[in-house]
């Protein structure tokens, strides 16, 4: 397997506050990694470092064997795309214009919309099932539709690596399932490598391949997601007892927060 992303002893501090300390991990081409951790663990900081928003002086990030710091913002945008958390900005654009804007990295100031651009647009709209509302205005979309458009725009960038920041946090259960399936489909059928920040343990355990657990800016654990749901591991990560059961249909393990914390009642 080829290594797509290599993070080496990455430390980040902003305004004298240490946010990440010596994080190292690798991501193979085609991997699906979930980043877990309590609030303030540095998950978003790590994503922002991978997007070139935060620059760190210590440690290195390599994408396809090239140092991220040596890439221009446009070059980076051809390798990494990003889906933000629920979007609050007022967007006065039609869906199609918003998705088209994602081709920025392939254009110079006055270049025209090309055949490649059109193909990327159609591909992105088809996979995300957004063709039907391409001509609607962004602000008229429901939460689930808006998130699919965000993913469509990121896909239109045609990058080998896709970053998602809690993509389902503000969606109802139906749309959560829909977006989870879409992400899995992208990973399995379209060979896009995924890094997703999430708080949904069971989703991470069932759908992703690997999990990176962060706590207080440090790497707590990195391993196959099938090994995630263990009492001691989750206890260490969240300071919370968990109990386990199985999904009645699939038989997959499921973790639930214990009603009686600190093991009083076990």
């Amino acid at each position, binding site marked *: 397997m080829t290594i797509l992303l290599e993070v080496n002893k990455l430390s980040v501090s902003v305004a004298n506050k240490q946010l990440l300390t010596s994080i190292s991990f690798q991501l193979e081409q085609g991997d699906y990694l979930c980043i877990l951790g309590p609030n303030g663990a540095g998950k978003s900081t790590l994503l922002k470092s991978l997007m*070139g*928003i935060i620059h760190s002086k210590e440690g290195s990030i390599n994408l396809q064997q090239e140092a991220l710091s040596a890439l221009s*913002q446009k070059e980076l945008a051809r390798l*990494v795309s990003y889906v933000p958390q629920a979007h609050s900005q*007022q967007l006065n*654009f039609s869906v199609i214009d918003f998705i088209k*804007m994602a081709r*920025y990295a392939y254009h110079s100031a006055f270049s025209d919309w090309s055949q490649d651009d059109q193909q990327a647009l159609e591909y992105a709209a088809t996979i995300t099932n957004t063709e039907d509302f391409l001509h609607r205005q962004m602000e008229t979309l429901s939460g689930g539709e808006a998130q699919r458009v965000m993913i469509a725009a990121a896909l239109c960038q045609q990058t080998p690596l896709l970053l998602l920041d809690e993509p389902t946090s503000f969606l109802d259960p139906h749309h959560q399932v829909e977006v989870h399936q879409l992400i899995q489909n992208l990973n399995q059928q379209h060979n896009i490598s995924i890094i997703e920040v999430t708080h949904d343990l069971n989703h991470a355990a069932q759908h992703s391949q690997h999990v990176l657990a962060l706590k207080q800016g440090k790497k707590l654990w990195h391993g196959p997601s099938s090994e995630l749901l263990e009492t001691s591991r989750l206890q260490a990560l969240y300071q919370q007892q968990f109990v386990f059961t199985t999904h009645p249909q699939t038989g997959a393990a499921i973790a639930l927060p214990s009603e009686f914390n600190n093991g009083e009642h076990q």
Partner: protein
Amino acid sequence: MKPVNTLILIAIATLLILFISPYLGLNVDDTAIQHHILTQLRVPRVLFAFIAGAGLALCGMVFQAMFHNPLATPFTLGVASGASLGAAIYVYLGFSFTIIGLDGGVFAAFMGALIAISFVYSISRYQNGFSPETLLLTGVAISFFFSSLILFTQYLSNLTDSFQILRWLMGSLTTVGYQDIIQLLPFVSICVAVILWLTRELNLLMTGDDIALSRGVSVQKIRYSLFFVTSLCVGAIVALCGPIGFIGMMVPHICRLLIGSDHRWLAPASLLFGGAFLIICDTISRLIIAPAEIPVGVITTLLGGPFFLWLLIKSRSKVA
């Protein structure tokens, strides 16, 4: 209507205004005097109004996109006050220098504008992002601060300088000639060229910094270059004809309603509309109590004040 058709209509209307307005209120019988008034007074005045209006409208549009806020303009954020202060100090100190043929007052105003924008930008950054309230309050505070410094400068000046500063602060196009157009044109041209070059980036900036960065926009670099060229442009306009307020807020907003938010169309539309709009205001200002004139800044502010309140109330009700 398609954006291209809207733009063509705006262009036609602008041309009509450009050609008709010099002839309005031309109440002299002597053709020789008429000719003189037209070529020596009216034509430079209309051309200057067009260039200044276009520049102010485009700078307003850029601020609205960068701060994600229709109320953010070089005037509401105190950049024009900074420029005014720079120019007032230049008058007070009695300097008179030129740099490569360009008036020193323009450079003084430019420095003032740049200082003001650095203030606003760093304060809004420090407050963790661009909360619209913080931003506008910062702008108001900076405006007040610079305005009182201007008053101070005026107080220290002798009567002639003081009156000169006062008249100029009202924003007037009464005395402009071809010389002023030559002074203004390079600054506005640079600014217009850069903004038209960066229309895609402006579109992406509207979606928020994180998304813009992830799409490949060097947000910081773009932001600084836009601050630089808008400061140049606003500085030059303020130095030459005083702070003419609210055009940068009204024109792009009206254009957005006419042609949409895509800056590839919005920028040329605002440019033409802004130029035409200032010509109209200036024509009103010289006709309304003819043969006397009122400063054009008074007209734009009279129109702009209520418009500002309307926008404020509208954006409030949208949030709530």
